[in-house]
Protein backbone atom coordinates (compact mmCIF):
# COMPACT_ATOMS: atom_id res chain seq x y z
CA UNK A 1 0.00 0.00 0.00
CA UNK A 2 1.23 3.46 -0.85
CA UNK A 3 1.97 5.81 2.04
CA UNK A 4 -0.21 8.32 0.20
CA UNK A 5 -3.29 6.34 1.34
CA UNK A 6 -2.31 6.10 4.98
CA UNK A 7 -1.20 9.65 5.82
CA UNK A 8 -4.66 11.20 5.37
CA UNK A 9 -6.02 8.74 7.96
CA UNK A 10 -3.35 9.78 10.48
CA UNK A 11 -4.02 13.48 9.88
CA UNK A 12 -7.81 13.17 9.85
CA UNK A 13 -7.97 11.02 12.99
CA UNK A 14 -5.85 13.53 14.91
CA UNK A 15 -7.91 16.56 13.87
CA UNK A 16 -11.32 14.83 14.18
CA UNK A 17 -10.58 13.33 17.60
CA UNK A 18 -9.34 16.71 18.80
CA UNK A 19 -12.67 18.29 17.84
CA UNK A 20 -15.00 15.48 18.94
CA UNK A 21 -13.22 14.28 22.09
CA UNK A 22 -11.49 17.50 23.09
CA UNK A 23 -8.04 15.98 23.61
CA UNK A 24 -4.93 15.87 21.47
CA UNK A 25 -4.35 12.31 20.24
CA UNK A 26 -0.85 10.95 19.68
CA UNK A 27 -0.36 8.68 16.66
CA UNK A 28 2.18 5.88 17.09
CA UNK A 29 4.30 3.87 14.71
CA UNK A 30 2.49 2.38 11.70
CA UNK A 31 2.87 -1.38 11.28
CA UNK A 32 1.83 -3.96 8.70
CA UNK A 33 -0.48 -6.89 9.43
CA UNK A 34 -0.88 -9.92 7.16
CA UNK A 35 -4.70 -9.85 7.27
CA UNK A 36 -7.58 -7.86 8.74
CA UNK A 37 -7.67 -9.21 12.24
CA UNK A 38 -8.72 -7.40 15.39
CA UNK A 39 -8.67 -8.37 19.04
CA UNK A 40 -10.59 -5.25 20.10
CA UNK A 41 -14.01 -5.39 21.84
CA UNK A 42 -15.60 -2.71 19.68
CA UNK A 43 -14.88 -2.29 15.96
CA UNK A 44 -16.35 0.14 13.48
CA UNK A 45 -16.08 -0.95 9.88
CA UNK A 46 -16.31 1.55 7.01
CA UNK A 47 -16.36 0.38 3.40
CA UNK A 48 -14.51 2.44 0.81
CA UNK A 49 -15.31 2.37 -2.92
CA UNK A 50 -13.84 4.25 -5.86
CA UNK A 51 -10.29 4.85 -7.11
CA UNK A 52 -9.07 3.37 -3.84
CA UNK A 53 -11.20 0.62 -2.34
CA UNK A 54 -11.36 -1.74 0.64
CA UNK A 55 -12.17 -1.28 4.33
CA UNK A 56 -11.13 0.80 7.30
CA UNK A 57 -11.62 -0.52 10.83
CA UNK A 58 -11.55 1.49 14.03
CA UNK A 59 -10.92 -0.82 16.99
CA UNK A 60 -10.90 -0.13 20.72
CA UNK A 61 -11.63 -1.69 24.09
CA UNK A 62 -15.13 -1.42 25.59
CA UNK A 63 -13.77 1.02 28.22
CA UNK A 64 -12.24 3.28 25.58
CA UNK A 65 -15.49 3.18 23.58
CA UNK A 66 -17.42 4.25 26.72
CA UNK A 67 -14.99 7.11 27.37
CA UNK A 68 -15.01 8.34 23.77
CA UNK A 69 -18.83 8.19 23.62
CA UNK A 70 -19.03 10.04 26.95
CA UNK A 71 -16.74 12.79 25.65
CA UNK A 72 -18.74 13.08 22.41
CA UNK A 73 -22.10 13.16 24.20
CA UNK A 74 -20.96 15.45 26.99
CA UNK A 75 -22.28 13.08 29.65
CA UNK A 76 -21.03 9.84 31.22
CA UNK A 77 -22.17 6.75 29.36
CA UNK A 78 -23.35 4.25 31.98
CA UNK A 79 -24.03 1.49 29.50
CA UNK A 80 -23.03 1.11 25.88
CA UNK A 81 -26.51 1.74 24.47
CA UNK A 82 -27.75 2.63 20.99
CA UNK A 83 -26.81 6.30 21.37
CA UNK A 84 -23.25 5.47 22.52
CA UNK A 85 -22.82 2.96 19.68
CA UNK A 86 -24.09 5.58 17.25
CA UNK A 87 -21.55 8.13 18.55
CA UNK A 88 -18.67 5.67 18.05
CA UNK A 89 -19.94 4.77 14.56
CA UNK A 90 -20.19 8.42 13.65
CA UNK A 91 -16.59 8.93 14.80
CA UNK A 92 -15.53 6.25 12.28
CA UNK A 93 -17.70 7.82 9.60
CA UNK A 94 -16.28 11.31 10.17
CA UNK A 95 -12.62 10.19 10.28
CA UNK A 96 -13.18 8.17 7.09
CA UNK A 97 -14.99 11.04 5.37
CA UNK A 98 -12.30 13.57 6.28
CA UNK A 99 -9.54 11.15 5.17
CA UNK A 100 -11.21 10.56 1.82
CA UNK A 101 -11.60 14.32 1.35
CA UNK A 102 -7.81 14.61 1.75
CA UNK A 103 -7.30 11.67 -0.63
CA UNK A 104 -9.51 13.40 -3.21
CA UNK A 105 -7.10 16.36 -3.09
CA UNK A 106 -4.37 13.92 -4.16
CA UNK A 107 -6.54 12.82 -7.08
CA UNK A 108 -8.15 9.65 -5.64
CA UNK A 109 -11.94 9.94 -5.78
CA UNK A 110 -13.71 7.65 -3.30
CA UNK A 111 -16.99 7.23 -1.43
CA UNK A 112 -17.79 5.53 1.89
CA UNK A 113 -20.59 3.25 2.96
CA UNK A 114 -22.47 3.84 6.23
CA UNK A 115 -20.46 2.36 9.14
CA UNK A 116 -21.16 -1.01 10.74
CA UNK A 117 -20.30 -1.71 14.37
CA UNK A 118 -19.01 -5.12 15.39
CA UNK A 119 -18.78 -6.04 19.06
CA UNK A 120 -16.75 -9.07 20.11
CA UNK A 121 -13.08 -9.98 20.09
CA UNK A 122 -11.07 -12.10 17.64
CA UNK A 123 -12.82 -10.74 14.61
CA UNK A 124 -11.25 -11.68 11.31
CA UNK A 125 -12.47 -10.12 8.09
CA UNK A 126 -11.56 -11.88 4.88
CA UNK A 127 -9.44 -9.50 2.85
CA UNK A 128 -9.23 -9.80 -0.88
CA UNK A 129 -5.46 -9.78 -1.15
CA UNK A 130 -5.20 -6.25 0.19
CA UNK A 131 -2.27 -5.15 2.35
CA UNK A 132 -3.21 -4.08 5.88
CA UNK A 133 -1.63 -1.19 7.78
CA UNK A 134 -2.33 -0.38 11.41
CA UNK A 135 -2.13 3.09 12.97
CA UNK A 136 -2.11 3.09 16.79
CA UNK A 137 -3.48 6.27 18.38
CA UNK A 138 -3.17 7.15 22.07
CA UNK A 139 -5.50 9.61 23.74
CA UNK A 140 -4.74 10.87 27.24
CA UNK A 141 -7.21 9.64 29.90
CA UNK A 142 -9.29 7.91 27.21
CA UNK A 143 -7.23 4.97 25.98
CA UNK A 144 -5.94 3.80 22.67
CA UNK A 145 -7.51 3.33 19.29
CA UNK A 146 -6.35 1.13 16.45
CA UNK A 147 -7.06 2.27 12.91
CA UNK A 148 -6.75 -0.65 10.53
CA UNK A 149 -6.46 0.56 6.95
CA UNK A 150 -6.97 -2.01 4.24
CA UNK A 151 -7.07 -0.18 0.92
CA UNK A 152 -5.98 -0.87 -2.60
CA UNK A 153 -5.65 1.29 -5.69
CA UNK A 154 -7.96 0.16 -8.49
CA UNK A 155 -5.39 0.52 -11.26
CA UNK A 156 -2.83 -1.49 -9.32
CA UNK A 157 -4.86 -4.68 -9.74
CA UNK A 158 -5.26 -3.99 -13.46
CA UNK A 159 -1.56 -3.41 -14.10
CA UNK A 160 -0.68 -6.48 -12.03
CA UNK A 161 -2.45 -8.82 -14.43
CA UNK A 162 -1.21 -6.96 -17.51
Amino acid at each position, binding site marked *: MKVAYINPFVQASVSVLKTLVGKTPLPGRISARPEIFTTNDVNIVCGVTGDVYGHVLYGMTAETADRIASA*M*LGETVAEFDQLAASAIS*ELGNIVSG*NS*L*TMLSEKGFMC*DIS*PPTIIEGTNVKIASIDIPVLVIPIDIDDIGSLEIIVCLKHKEASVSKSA
Partner: protein
Amino acid sequence: MAKRILITDDALFMRVTLKNILTQHGYEVVGEAQNGTEAVKLFQQLRPDLVTMDITMPEMDGIAALKEIKAIDSEAVVVMCTAMGQKNMVVDAIQAGAKDFIVKPFQPDRVLEAVSKLLAA
Protein backbone atom coordinates in the same frame (compact mmCIF):
# COMPACT_ATOMS: atom_id res chain seq x y z
CA MET B 1 -43.40 31.51 15.64
CA ALA B 2 -40.34 29.27 15.81
CA LYS B 3 -38.81 28.26 12.49
CA ARG B 4 -39.43 24.59 11.71
CA ILE B 5 -36.52 22.29 10.83
CA LEU B 6 -36.30 18.72 9.53
CA ILE B 7 -33.09 16.85 10.43
CA THR B 8 -31.75 14.08 8.17
CA ASP B 9 -28.94 11.78 9.35
CA ASP B 10 -28.60 8.00 9.68
CA ALA B 11 -26.65 8.39 12.94
CA LEU B 12 -28.79 8.78 16.07
CA PHE B 13 -25.86 10.60 17.70
CA MET B 14 -25.85 13.25 14.98
CA ARG B 15 -29.65 13.70 15.10
CA VAL B 16 -29.49 14.21 18.88
CA THR B 17 -26.54 16.63 18.57
CA LEU B 18 -28.20 18.73 15.86
CA LYS B 19 -31.55 18.72 17.67
CA ASN B 20 -29.90 19.96 20.89
CA ILE B 21 -28.03 22.75 19.11
CA LEU B 22 -31.15 23.91 17.24
CA THR B 23 -33.76 23.63 20.01
CA GLN B 24 -31.46 25.39 22.49
CA HIS B 25 -31.49 28.35 20.13
CA GLY B 26 -35.22 28.63 19.62
CA TYR B 27 -35.75 26.47 16.55
CA GLU B 28 -38.38 23.76 16.42
CA VAL B 29 -37.23 20.36 15.15
CA VAL B 30 -40.41 19.04 13.55
CA GLY B 31 -39.01 15.79 12.19
CA GLU B 32 -36.03 13.45 12.11
CA ALA B 33 -35.32 11.33 9.04
CA GLN B 34 -32.87 8.42 9.05
CA ASN B 35 -32.33 8.22 5.30
CA GLY B 36 -33.13 10.03 2.07
CA THR B 37 -36.41 8.23 1.45
CA GLU B 38 -37.73 9.26 4.88
CA ALA B 39 -36.51 12.82 4.37
CA VAL B 40 -38.48 13.19 1.12
CA LYS B 41 -41.60 11.71 2.73
CA LEU B 42 -41.33 13.92 5.82
CA PHE B 43 -40.59 17.00 3.73
CA GLN B 44 -43.78 16.39 1.76
CA GLN B 45 -45.81 16.00 4.98
CA LEU B 46 -44.26 18.67 7.19
CA ARG B 47 -43.12 21.39 4.76
CA PRO B 48 -40.34 22.60 7.09
CA ASP B 49 -38.61 25.97 6.74
CA LEU B 50 -35.22 24.24 6.49
CA VAL B 51 -33.82 20.72 6.04
CA THR B 52 -30.40 19.48 7.21
CA MET B 53 -29.16 16.69 4.97
CA ASP B 54 -26.44 14.08 5.52
CA ILE B 55 -25.02 12.50 2.33
CA THR B 56 -23.76 9.01 3.24
CA MET B 57 -26.93 7.14 4.22
CA PRO B 58 -28.58 3.80 3.44
CA GLU B 59 -31.74 3.61 1.27
CA MET B 60 -31.35 6.95 -0.53
CA ASP B 61 -28.28 9.19 -0.22
CA GLY B 62 -28.49 12.88 0.57
CA ILE B 63 -27.78 14.17 -2.92
CA ALA B 64 -30.62 12.10 -4.40
CA ALA B 65 -32.94 13.22 -1.58
CA LEU B 66 -31.96 16.86 -2.15
CA LYS B 67 -32.90 16.56 -5.83
CA GLU B 68 -36.29 15.00 -4.99
CA ILE B 69 -37.05 17.66 -2.40
CA LYS B 70 -36.14 20.42 -4.88
CA ALA B 71 -38.47 18.77 -7.42
CA ILE B 72 -41.32 18.94 -4.88
CA ASP B 73 -40.53 22.55 -3.95
CA SER B 74 -37.89 24.52 -5.83
CA GLU B 75 -37.81 27.04 -2.96
CA ALA B 76 -36.88 24.39 -0.36
CA VAL B 77 -33.97 25.39 1.88
CA VAL B 78 -31.62 22.43 2.27
CA VAL B 79 -28.27 22.53 4.09
CA MET B 80 -25.89 19.61 3.56
CA CYS B 81 -24.23 18.34 6.72
CA THR B 82 -21.77 15.55 5.99
CA ALA B 83 -18.37 14.00 6.69
CA MET B 84 -17.52 14.04 2.98
CA GLY B 85 -16.06 17.38 1.94
CA GLN B 86 -14.78 16.50 -1.52
CA LYS B 87 -14.98 19.32 -4.05
CA ASN B 88 -17.04 17.27 -6.52
CA MET B 89 -19.65 16.51 -3.82
CA VAL B 90 -19.85 20.15 -2.76
CA VAL B 91 -20.26 21.19 -6.41
CA ASP B 92 -22.91 18.48 -7.02
CA ALA B 93 -24.86 19.56 -3.94
CA ILE B 94 -24.73 23.29 -4.69
CA GLN B 95 -25.68 22.68 -8.33
CA ALA B 96 -28.62 20.58 -7.15
CA GLY B 97 -29.77 23.53 -5.06
CA ALA B 98 -28.25 23.09 -1.58
CA LYS B 99 -27.93 26.45 0.20
CA ASP B 100 -24.87 25.57 2.31
CA PHE B 101 -22.45 22.70 2.89
CA ILE B 102 -21.29 21.96 6.44
CA VAL B 103 -18.47 19.45 6.87
CA LYS B 104 -18.41 17.27 10.02
CA PRO B 105 -17.02 17.56 12.62
CA PHE B 106 -18.56 21.00 13.12
CA GLN B 107 -18.75 23.49 15.95
CA PRO B 108 -22.34 24.40 16.99
CA ASP B 109 -21.72 27.99 15.84
CA ARG B 110 -21.11 26.85 12.27
CA VAL B 111 -24.59 25.26 12.17
CA LEU B 112 -26.31 28.18 13.90
CA GLU B 113 -24.66 30.71 11.63
CA ALA B 114 -25.80 28.87 8.48
CA VAL B 115 -29.34 28.32 9.75
CA SER B 116 -29.89 31.84 11.10
CA LYS B 117 -28.58 33.40 7.88
CA LEU B 118 -30.85 31.29 5.69
CA LEU B 119 -33.94 31.75 7.87
CA ALA B 120 -33.49 35.48 8.48
CA ALA B 121 -35.49 36.55 5.45
